[in-house]
């Protein structure tokens, strides 16, 4: 694959290195001449000096034949514009933008960027997984269907302990798919399955009904 990376900072450089190791054709576009020289010195002639938001630069580096376009500069707005130019002017099939402000993830999506990566959100997700007291953990996003898979733990003091699944006020969009009770023993819940303390419940839900699902499972 021919992959163009905009921004030769730390993220851009290590990304280029990893993708080169996988055997892809890589090109980094970087404004700063010193950074440019550093990357060429380390990785060979894979870096061009220029502004990755400018049509002229992108024409020169052959964006028209790129399979993937990744913008990882430190500025969200530059990443957005670079990806939009690549998408609308050069018809690159896959555009990926990095955002620093987590709120921009949804904005970029609305504005047509294929994939948006927010390092802030990624770190937050990891914290959720690592902190055991967190009531709900995001396991996976099924973005194109608007669904997500989450894990909910039932605390020892939950008001729902002893209730059967059919008695819970589950939101319509949520489905309980698995209950992990003791080690190595998953149960597929039925309407009559009764909740116990320390149950770990894996459920599919929409982001909107996340809150309602949590309340239904743990009580208020």
């Amino acid at each position, binding site marked *: 694959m021919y992959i163009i990376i905009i921004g030769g900072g730390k993220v851009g450089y290590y990304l280029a290195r990893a993708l080169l190791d996988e055997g892809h054709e890589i090109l980094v576009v970087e404004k700063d001449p010193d950074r440019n020289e550093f990357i*060429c010195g380390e990785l060979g002639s894979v870096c061009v000096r220029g502004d990755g938001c400018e049509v002229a630069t992108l024409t*020169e580096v052959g964006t028209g034949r790129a399979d993937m376009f990744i913008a990882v500069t430190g500025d969200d707005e530059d990443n957005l514009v670079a990806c939009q130019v690549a998408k609308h002017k050069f018809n690159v099939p896959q555009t990926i933008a990095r955002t620093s402000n987590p709120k921009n993830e949804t904005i970029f999506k609305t504005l047509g960027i294929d994939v948006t990566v927010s390092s802030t959100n990624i770190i937050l997700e990891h914290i959720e997984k690592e902190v055991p007291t967190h009531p709900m953990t995001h396991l996976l996003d099924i973005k194109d269907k608007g669904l997500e898979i989450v894990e909910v733990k039932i605390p020892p003091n939950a008001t729902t302990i002893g209730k059967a699944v059919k008695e819970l006020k589950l939101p319509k969009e949520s489905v309980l798919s698995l209950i992990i009770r003791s080690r190595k023993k998953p149960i597929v819940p039925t309407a009559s399955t009764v909740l116990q303390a320390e149950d770990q419940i894996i459920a599919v839900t929409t982001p909107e009904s996340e809150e309602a699902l949590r309340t239904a499972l743990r009580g208020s």
Partner: protein
Amino acid sequence: MEFNKILVPVTGTPADDEAMRLACRLTKKNKGKIWAVYVVTVKRSLPLDAEIEPEIKKAENILDRIAIVAEEEDYEIETDLLQAREVGPTIVDEAVEREADLILMGVIYKRRFGQFSLGNVVPYVLKNAPCQVILYHQYTPR
């Protein structure tokens, strides 16, 4: 000065011929090796292995001609056609790989933006070469 492995990058200017003659004389006594290389630069808009017919033909002609120049000096050289994104790093890599002890290249006087300019290849080679470098400047009366 004596050398055993000389790399002569050529570009098709009159300076190439004199540079080649000089290379032959510098290594004749030692019966050293000479490589003439031509680098075809491929624009990023094309894949690196694209076959750019007119460019390749031109390069082959230049290399054939430079081999004849060497023959006139009673010397047999090897020629090499390389395809790359940038000329400078390719010449340096080639010199490293062949363990050349000299890079000998002809330059012509150029002006860019009103100032004397060596372009970007020569300065890169001077800065990064793994061996000695001789620049031959062809005098062209103005």
